[in-house]
Structures are given as structure tokens and as C-alpha cells.
């Protein structure tokens, strides 16, 4: 699934490791999320949305909208 994680992270000037720490996941997880190859569970998606203070649908795009 496409997402704006990389852009949102860059806007805040965070490294993948910074984001990984904030979400309490590994850096490889951030990488898999950013490439769009791994879709997060609903709880992790909510956590990401809260961290960036944006609704889930403005971060992730399932191509259906």
C-alpha cells in the first residue's frame, strides 16, 4: 500500500531509526513500511497516525479513494 511515511518523516527531519524508536519497532520495519511492501496492522497504523497527528487515510492510500 502506498503511504506518505517517508515524506512525513523527512518533514520532521527524523531518520528511520528516530521513527523506529518513536513507534517502538525496528528500523527494518520502518524500511518495509516506507517501501509500501509491508502494510501495518490497524493498531500500528493508529500509532503512526497519532504520532504524525494525521488521520490514517491521509497517510496511507489503498488506491480505492
Amino acid at each position: 500500500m502506498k503511504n506518505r511515511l517517508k515524506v512525513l518523516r523527512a518533514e520532521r527531519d527524523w531518520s528511520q531509526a528516530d521513527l523506529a524508536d518513536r513507534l517502538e519497532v525496528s528500523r527494518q520495519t520502518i524500511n518495509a513500511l516506507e517501501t509500501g511492501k509491508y502494510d501495518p496492522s490497524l493498531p500500528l497504523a493508529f500509532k503512526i497516525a497519532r504520532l504524525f497527528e494525521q488521520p490514517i487515510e491521509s497517510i496511507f492510500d489503498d488506491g480505492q479513494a
Partner: protein
Amino acid sequence: MATSRNPAQKRYIARFMPTMAVYVVCIFTVSWVFNRYEPTGPVAWALALLPALPLLAVIAIMGLYLREEGDEFVRNILVESMLWGVGLTLAIMTVWGFLEMYAETPRLPAFWAFPIFCFGMGVAQPFIKRRYR
């Protein structure tokens, strides 16, 4: 892998290592006892089961790690690699089973199921990880 271990992984290692040490001690002790005393009956049964116990513990330790791993992506990779391990084990056991039954190939001890599973799991992991890069 350069990434540092999370608490669940540290707990896994802390449980796994001593259990494998117990396994190694068991396997050497048991084979020594069988060579020297050639036990039979219930004693032989009990002794033969001894090395299996730490391996049963390893299965439980793997299950605990799966439950405790908080990183869903890491857990996902592990589950996928376990499925490859299961697939390889079932494939080898099935093919070999029929070969044994009809073609009189040498018997493959059932003991090998677990090592084959672990081998399949270990080999699959880097390939699964690469898919997400």
C-alpha cells in the same frame, strides 16, 4: 544483521542458550550410558526421552518469543519462515516416507523432523527479508 536485539529477542536468547546446553549434556550423557550399560525396558525409555525434553522446551521457547515479540513485522517474518520450515519438513518426510515404503531407501529417523524444520526456517529467513526491501 546489524540491528540490536529488542527485549523479547534478548529473553529468547537467554532461554534458548541454556536449554540447548542442557540438550547437549543430555545427548552426550545418554549416548554414553547406552554404550556402556545397554539399558533396556522402562529405564531405556526414560533415558531415550531425556534429550527430547530440552527440545520440547525449545518449541515452547519459540512460541513464547512469538507471543512476546512486539514488532509485528519481525514477527511476521518469523511466522513466514516457520511456514517454510513446516513446508520443507512435510515435503521431505512425505517424499522420503514413500521412498521408504516402496523403494526400500534407508530409513530416515523421525528425529530429523525438528532439525529439518529449523534448517528450512533459517534458510528461508534472508529470502523473506529481501522481499520487503
